[in-house]
C-alpha cells in the first residue's frame, strides 16, 4: 500500500499541472456548495434574529408575510393603517407587557425612516435576546431628534450632533431617487442625530429612528404627499400643535406570559371597531422563508451540478491519462502487480485529487470568510461566522468525497481491464 501510494504520488507529480487544474475545479465547486449553504444559514439566522423577543406583530388585516416584511424589514408599502385608539386599547391590555408602535413612509438617502417611541430601544431584542445598545449618544427624547443604525452611520459617515433631513416617500432598494416621482425633502424641519446604535446584523442597522410626534410634525403642512403651497410651519411653531398620530402601520407586542400568545392573537382578531390581525413572527418568518427557500434550493442544485462537472472532469482527466500511462501500468504488472494493485493505484489518485480539491475548497471558504466576513457582516448584515464548519457541511464534504470515489471507479475499472487486454507487452 505504501509502495503504491508513493508510486501514485510520483506519477501524479509527473502530471501535476493537469491534475492541479482538475483539483482546482473540484475546489471551486466545493467553495460554491459551502458558500451557498453558509449564506443560506446566515440569512436564515439573521431573519430569525431580527425579531427575537417579539411575541406578536399587530397591524391592519391583510397578508401576514406583507405585514412582517413591512414591520420588521421595512420593505414594501403599507396597504392599510390602524387607528391610534386601537393601539392604545391593545397597549392597555393586562396581558401585554410592552408594545412598540411603528410608522413608516419616509426615508433618508435610501434608508427607511421608522417612527416609533423610546420603548423601541428598551424592549426590542435581537439575536440571542440581546438588547439594542448605543455606540454613542442615547435614545431620542424630543422632537426632531434621530437615532441611526450602525450601517447608516458607517455608510454616510454620521456622528452624533450631525443634522439630517428626511425625504417624503419610502426608500427604494436601488437607492435611486427622483425628486419628481418620489416626493420631496422635508428641508424645513431638519433632525439632529442624538444616538448611533451598535451593529446588530438586523434591519435596525439600516434604519433611521425618530419619534412618532416628529413624523406628525414634519407632515403638518402636507397633504396628499405634497407640501401645501404657501403654508410654511417652522419647527418652533410645530410644537404648538397636537402631535399625537392618528394612524399607525404596525405594533410590536411583548407579553408577560408567552403562553398567552394565542389568546391575545384571538383578541386582536376579534377586535371591535376595525379589522386587525396579529401574527406570530416565527410562523410568518417560516412562511417567508419558504418563498425564499425555492431560490436557495435552485442555487444548491446549481452548486451540485458544478460539483458533478468538477468530478466528471477529474474522471475524464484520469481516463485520458490512462492512454499515455499504458506502458507504466504494463511495467507495474510485469514486476508482479495485479489488477487490484492498478485499481488501488488509480483510486488513490482519484481520491487524493478529490481530497486535495476538498481541502483547498474548505481553505478558500475559511480564508474568504475570515478576510471578508467583517465586510459582509457590515454590508449585508449576514454573519457568516455563526455557521462555521458544522455537521451539515461535514455531510456535504462527505458526499462530495463519496461522489469522487464513484468517479474514480471508472478509470480504475478501465485500467484493470486494459492492462489485461493489452497484455504485458506495450504496443506501439
Amino acid at each position: 500500500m505504501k509502495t503504491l501510494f508513493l508510486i501514485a504520488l510520483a506519477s501524479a507529480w509527473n502530471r501535476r499541472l493537469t491534475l492541479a487544474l482538475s483539483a482546482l475545479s473540484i475546489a471551486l465547486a466545493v467553495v460554491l456548495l459551502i458558500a451557498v449553504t453558509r449564506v443560506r444559514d446566515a440569512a436564515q439566522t439573521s431573519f430569525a434574529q431580527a425579531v427575537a423577543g417579539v411575541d406578536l406583530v399587530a397591524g391592519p388585516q391583510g397578508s401576514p408575510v406583507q405585514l412582517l416584511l413591512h414591520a420588521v424589514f421595512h420593505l414594501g408599502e403599507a396597504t392599510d393603517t390602524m387607528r391610534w385608539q386601537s393601539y392604545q386599547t391593545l397597549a392597555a391590555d393586562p396581558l401585554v407587557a410592552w408594545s412598540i408602535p411603528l410608522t413608516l413612509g419616509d426615508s433618508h438617502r435610501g434608508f427607511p425612516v421608522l417612527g416609533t417611541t423610546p420603548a423601541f430601544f428598551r424592549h426590542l431584542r435581537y439575536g440571542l435576546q440581546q438588547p439594542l445598545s448605543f455606540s454613542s449618544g442615547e435614545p431620542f427624547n424630543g422632537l426632531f431628534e434621530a437615532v441611526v443604525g450602525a450601517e447608516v452611520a458607517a455608510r454616510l459617515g454620521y456622528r452624533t450632533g450631525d443634522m439630517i433631513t428626511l425625504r417624503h416617500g419610502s426608500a427604494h432598494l436601488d437607492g435611486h431617487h427622483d425628486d419628481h416621482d418620489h416626493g420631496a425633502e422635508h428641508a424645513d424641519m431638519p433632525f439632529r442625530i442624538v444616538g448611533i446604535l451598535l451593529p446588530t446584523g438586523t434591519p435596525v442597522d439600516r434604519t433611521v429612528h425618530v419619534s412618532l410626534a416628529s413624523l406628525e410634525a414634519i407632515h403638518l403642512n402636507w397633504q396628499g404627499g405634497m407640501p401645501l403651497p404657501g403654508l410654511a410651519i417652522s419647527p418652533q411653531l410645530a410644537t404648538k400643535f397636537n402631535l399625537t398620530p392618528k394612524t399607525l402601520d404596525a405594533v410590536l407586542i411583548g407579553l408577560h406570559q408567552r403562553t398567552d400568545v394565542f389568546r391575545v392573537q384571538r383578541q386582536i382578531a376579534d377586535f371591535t371597531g376595525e379589522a386587525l390581525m396579529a401574527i406570530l413572527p416565527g410562523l410568518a418568518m417560516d412562511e417567508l422563508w419558504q418563498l425564499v427557500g425555492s431560490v436557495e434550493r435552485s442555487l444548491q442544485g446549481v452548486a451540485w451540478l458544478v460539483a458533478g462537472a468538477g468530478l466528471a472532469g477529474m474522471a475524464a482527466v484520469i481516463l485520458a491519462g490512462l492512454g499515455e500511462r499504458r506502458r507504466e501500468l504494463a511495467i507495474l504488472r510485469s514486476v508482479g502487480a495485479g489488477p487490484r494493485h492498478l485499481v488501488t493505484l488509480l483510486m488513490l489518485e482519484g481520491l487524493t485529487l478529490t481530497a486535495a480539491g476538498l481541502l483547498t475548497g474548505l481553505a478558500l471558504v475559511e480564508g474568504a470568510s475570515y478576510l471578508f466576513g467583517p465586510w459582509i457582516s457590515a454590508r449585508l448584515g449576514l454573519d457568516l461566522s455563526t455557521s462555521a464548519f458544522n455537521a451539515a457541511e461535514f455531510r456535504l464534504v462527505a458526499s462530495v468525497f463519496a461522489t469522487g470515489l464513484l468517479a474514480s471507479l471508472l478509470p480504475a475499472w478501465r485500467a484493470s481491464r486494459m492492462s489485461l487486454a493489452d497484455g504485458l507487452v506495450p504496443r506501439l
Partner: protein
Amino acid sequence: MRLVDTVIHIRDLRFTWPASHAPCLALPTLDVRRGERLFMHGESGAGKSTLLNLIGGVMLPDSGNIEILGQSLTALSASARDRFRGDHAGFIFQQFNLIPYLSVIGNVLLPCRFSVERTRRTGGSPLAEARRLLDILDLDPRLADRPAASLSVGQQQRVSAARALIGRPELILADEPTSALDPRRQAAFIELLMKEVAASGGTLLFVSHDQRLATLFDRSVELRTP
C-alpha cells in the same frame, strides 16, 4: 527431477484473442532447462508477445498445459499468478521499459517492492544490490538518482536489465530488447545480459525477429504462425 531442471514446460498450447476467430498462438511443445539461453524467433504475428503473456501468467491459454518451475499456471488464482510472476520472472521489453518519473534506482528496485521473495534474495539490502547491478551493467553511479526519462536508450535498456535481474529470478524474459540499439551495441548488450543471467543462475528466454542474433545463444527455436 523434471520439476527441478525444467524451467518452462509447455504442451499443446493454444490461445485465441476474444475478438478473433483464428488462434494467434499454437505451440505443440517447448521445454527449457535450467540455465539454458534460448533464442526464439518468429515473424510478427507469430504470437511472441502472446507467449510471453502466457508464460508471465497475465493471460491463460484456451487449452494446453503450461508449467513454470513445475508449477502449472492454470492451477493458480489470478492474484497467485501475479505473485508468482513477481517472484520468479524478470521482464525486459523492447523500448520505454522504465517508469519515466521514477529515478533510475527506483526503477531497478520496483520488483522488490512487489515481491518479498526477491527482496529476500538480494541478501537483505535491495539498494546495495541495485547499485551493484548498475555498476556491473556499466552505468555511471551518478545516474542512479536521475529520473529514468533523462537516460539514453542504451542506458535505459541496461537499467531494465538490472531491474529484471534484481533478486535473482529463475526466468528472464526478454522481448526484442535490442531492437532499439545499433548493431554494435546489440551484441555487447546481449553478452552482458547473458553473463549476468549466468551469474545469477537464471534461465534466459530471448525473443526476437532478428535471426542473426541466434548464433549468440545455446539453442534457437522458431515460433510459427498458426
